[in-house]
């Protein structure tokens, strides 16, 4: 077997406790040309993000254990992920929730239900921005 060349596809962490949405987002991102690593709880998301340091994280807000806000705060606090782009995926569409997400350190948010185009635009924008100088 020939060892596949190291992929230059961006690695995206997708965390959601809803299996269907996790699959849906993963499908959309893979179609966009990303490699996806999945997490089903906040704690798992944090562990994977700190271990693999993906290029982007798409985090659901409402998850068992650590919620999306907490994971965002932890990632911002840790050195390797302090500048990692983070998109919060939230069904809590109220402005206060959005403000809370941004305050926690998220770069953007997407309201559920989301539009495929909307997801593509935001992911592409954040990936092309690259890691911000901290």
């Amino acid at each position, binding site marked *: 077997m020939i060892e596949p060349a190291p992929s230059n596809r961006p690695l995206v962490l997708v965390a959601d406790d*809803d299996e*269907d*949405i996790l699959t*849906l987002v993963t*499908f*959309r991102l893979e*179609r966009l040309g990303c490699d996806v690593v999945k997490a089903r709880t906040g704690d798992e998301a944090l562990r994977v993000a700190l271990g693999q340091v993906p290029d982007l994280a798409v985090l659901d807000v*409402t998850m068992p254990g650590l919620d999306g806000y907490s994971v965002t705060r932890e990632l911002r606090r840790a050195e390797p992920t302090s500048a990692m782009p983070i998109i919060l995926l939230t*069904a*809590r*569409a*109220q*402005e*206060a929730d959005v403000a809370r997400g941004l305050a926690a350190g998220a770069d953007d948010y997407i309201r*559920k*239900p*989301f*539009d*495929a185009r909307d997801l593509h635009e935001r992911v592409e924008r954040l990936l092309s921005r690259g890691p911000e100088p901290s």
Partner: protein
Amino acid sequence: MSNKPQRLTLRIAAYTGVALLFAAGAILWFVNSRATAEAENQAVNRAQFIADALLHNELGEADFVRPVTGQRRARLDELFQRAVHTEGMLRMNLIAPNGQITYSTSPALIGSRQPDDEMALEPVLRGSGARDVSEIEQGGRRIKAFETYLPVQPAGGAPIGVFELYQDYDSRITDQARNTLYPVAGFLALALFVLCAALVPILRRVTAAVEIRNEQLVEQATRLEQSLAFAQEAQMETESARSALSEQNKRLVELDRLKDEFLSLVSHELRTPLTSIRGYLDLVLDEEAGTLNPEQRRFLKAVERNSGRLLRLVGDLLFVAQADAGRLTLERAKVDVAALAADCVEAAQPVADQRAIDLQLAAVPVPALVGDRGRLAQVVDNLVSNALKFTPEGGRVEIRTSTIGDYVYLEVEDSGIGIPAAEQSRLFERFFRAAAATERAIPGTGLGLAIVKAIVEAHAGAIEVISAPGKGTTFRVELPLREARTAEAVEEAA
């Protein structure tokens, strides 16, 4: 209670009586001593009279040399019996300067000496009288006697002896004094009685008045106590009502919080499955899972449309709940209402065309106002969408903007079915649907106008409806150009 004044009256009467009795006693004592002194003076005067008038001419020096005897003694006896020995006169003595009694109406005393403890004779022999009170034996019993010593003096000569007269003290002094004292005592007793007779009713009246005043005071005190008790009770009631209200308020706040939480949860729980439904639907419609035939596409479009309606309904419900809780937050910026109207007309044009409705825009440029662009766009969209829904094919819908004074006006007029007057007042209530809408199966949730009203009012504006069945409807929104708070907010933001 009625016993009290009587006792009080009796006490005052008793004290007054005792005081008056003391006063009367003092008066009687004074009168008695004066009357006694007067009687004694009279007794002295009587003795002096006897001595002067009767004896001076009869008595000679010989009568005071030695005890008289024989004829002289008989003569003196006769003299005394006749002239002197009257009622109250007990005894008379003639005493020689050396103290020997030379004559006495009590024969046993003749020749005896004046006892040493008796009155000294020297002052009397020098010319002044003297008096004394003593007890003497007379007829076998002791009698209190008033003694008078007088010098016996021949005209122009020195005293030759002493004349001593004993008068019955009781009849001569005491009785006489009593003659003065008794009327005074009687008068005093009468005066005392009259005084008491007059005083008792006065006292009664006074004590009654005092008692009435006292009762009034007691009553006043009772009333004050009562009103104090009432006040305290009222205060306690107020306090308990306040605490009940505060408790109720806490419960309401808690309920409100629970409602918000519930709505937020419901919103989240509904959106999550809708996310999957719409997401996977998009995948299929995007033909990610293979090519669709036109029928499949048409059916899936119906699913998409209805999931969209469901999503809007969830959004509307959340919005209304927020507005109810007074938590409608506006993202304020400068908004051009005429531009909003134009955008809306452009978006609604396909629907209007589909139903052959003449959609017109008469948007005069208006000054920009401060408000939430998204929310105000929702107002225009809801009103235009309603107008299109309730206007039959071939009808007309016109959107107008204008400015009057400090207000911007947005009007949406349709030539639709109209709204009966009875329904107009309930039009902006949540979930209210006009009878015509239900009858004609025009889709809707009854939340659209409630949301419009909430947004307009959050902008300090107002909305009114002018309508008549069969003649169409006009919604008129009034939005203030100047609102102090928003102006400040914009300045701060700038």
